[in-house]
């Protein structure tokens, strides 16, 4: 059996790649992809430790995570679409009618 630390390192790496993408990229679609990476990092943990802990809770919950991630993307694409219609760009930094 693969030691559990390996899974933790893998998921932490995927999570950090996602976080890096969010912090450095300005394209809203790339932002969505990066969030997907972070959610899937959680799925790696859930499935790996489901096997380690010997119960199915984690695997079932990872299905819920995948489903809500899909729903989140659907809403997100809709918002990015109206962003493009209003600002002619999907750059998240162009929308600055209010100050941060």
């Amino acid at each position, binding site marked *: 059996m693969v030691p559990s630390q390996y899974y933790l390192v893998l998921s932490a790496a995927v*999570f950090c790649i996602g976080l890096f993408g969010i912090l450095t990229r300005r394209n809203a679609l790339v932002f969505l992809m990066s969030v997907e990476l972070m959610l899937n990092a959680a799925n790696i943990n859930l499935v790996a430790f489901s096997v380690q802990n010997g119960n199915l809770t984690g695997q079932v919950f990872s299905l819920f995570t995948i489903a809500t991630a899909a729903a989140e993307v659907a809403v997100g694409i809709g918002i990015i679409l109206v962003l493009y219609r209003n600002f002619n760009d999907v750059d998240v930094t162009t929308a600055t*009618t209010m100050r941060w």
Partner: protein
Amino acid sequence: MSVATTITTPAAVSNQPLQLGLGGYEAIAPTIILGLTALALFTIDSIAPESRNNTLLSGVTVVGSLIAVVVTGWQLLTGAGSVELFSGQLVVDGMSLFFTFIFTSVTALVALASHEYVGDRAYQAEYYVLVVLAATGMTLIASANSLATAFVSLELTSLPSYALVAYLKDNRGSVEAGLKYFLIGSLSSAVFVYGISLVYAATGSLLFTEVAATLSAGIDGSLTGVLGIGVVMILGGVAFKTASIPFHFWAPEAYEGAPAPISAFLSSASKAAGFVLAFRVFLTAFPIDAIAGVDWVLAFQILALVTMTLGNFAAATQETVKRMLAYSSIGHAGYALIALGALTGAANQPFVLSAGMIHLLVYGFMNTGAFLFVALAEHWGIGRTFEDYNGLASKAPVACAAMSIFLFSLAGLPTGGGFLSKYFLLIGAVEAQTYVLAAGLIINSALSLYFYSRVVKAMWIEEPAGDLSIEGYPTGLYAAIVTAAVVTLLLLPALAIFSDPALTAGSGLF
């Protein structure tokens, strides 16, 4: 083998006494009623998709949420005790009913006020459906008893909220607000679910009670760090929902750009949903004496102090009323966080917790009312800054009187329940010997009186600039504002009705 199983199973069932009733599912009646309301709205929309019969849609939403209010209030006052459903995934107790009462009341007020605000815009059915679905998610958050249901119901609340903030599709402010809310929301939900996965890695369970049991039995020493990071990440997800530092950046933008009734909905109900999640997760799943090494009480003390100070100081520098209310909403999240920060063991812990719950209840009415007044001003098109409100009381004295009640109650003056709830929080902070929090509460309330008074001064004392003309007195908006004002006023003498259930609910978590 399979034949034997199918034969024995009915026999085993028939030996049990025949159960009449709904098998305990009547306990989640408010959630079911809200869900059915959403389905009714879908049906109306599919029968007449081109119709813009706003009165029907708004009426169905108001009636549905009012039925849910009445059912919740009845369950709360009869005190049904604690019911577990779906193998312990959901729990209905005093805490969940208390918060469900807040969510359903705010939903009713917002739906009533939306009648004129939405007017004859397109996609009205979607607007009301999303409001009701978000409210359904909030009632589920209040009942969530496992990290899985907590995450799914949190998403059920968040996803409709993103769409609602961006509802004014041709308004650049609304779209920008929706985008920023979505970006930070999806980031924080990813952080939240990663935190859940780490807690699952350390404890092997998602049920709050099982997590707590595993923690008090002691976990493998090599997994303590994993658990600690997981708890901090879950705290991050909660901080987003309650609009606390450091995940508050979305709040001023989303509240300012969103349609004003949606700002009211998010800043009152959605914030309370974040708090009930925090109360349940941290008190049931991560009890402070079981979880060694993660001092979340200290974390909440720091969060409370920084959040209330930053929120109120930022509110004092704003030029527009809506953005001022948005920052004041962050400040109030800081006050409510005292309920968790003051759980040092020195004080009467259920009292501290119930003080936070009562503050969120009163805040639900007074803050909703204040944002609905902004909705009224937007409906009249009189502008957004403090100066634009000059002399408004000469044209609309009733609404301005209601707004003055809300603002003074928000500041903590005895014109509404806000005085008592802040007083309870203060007693709790002093008893817990967290004097810094008590001092922060007093100083920030004094400061907040300055910027709330600016609005009152503009409305009642200043002369109107130029020709201030308002057309019509929208019935629904007025009804919602006056109802909120009456409830805010009545909560001052009648708070005892809610303080006893709150105290009972608070002691249920210890």
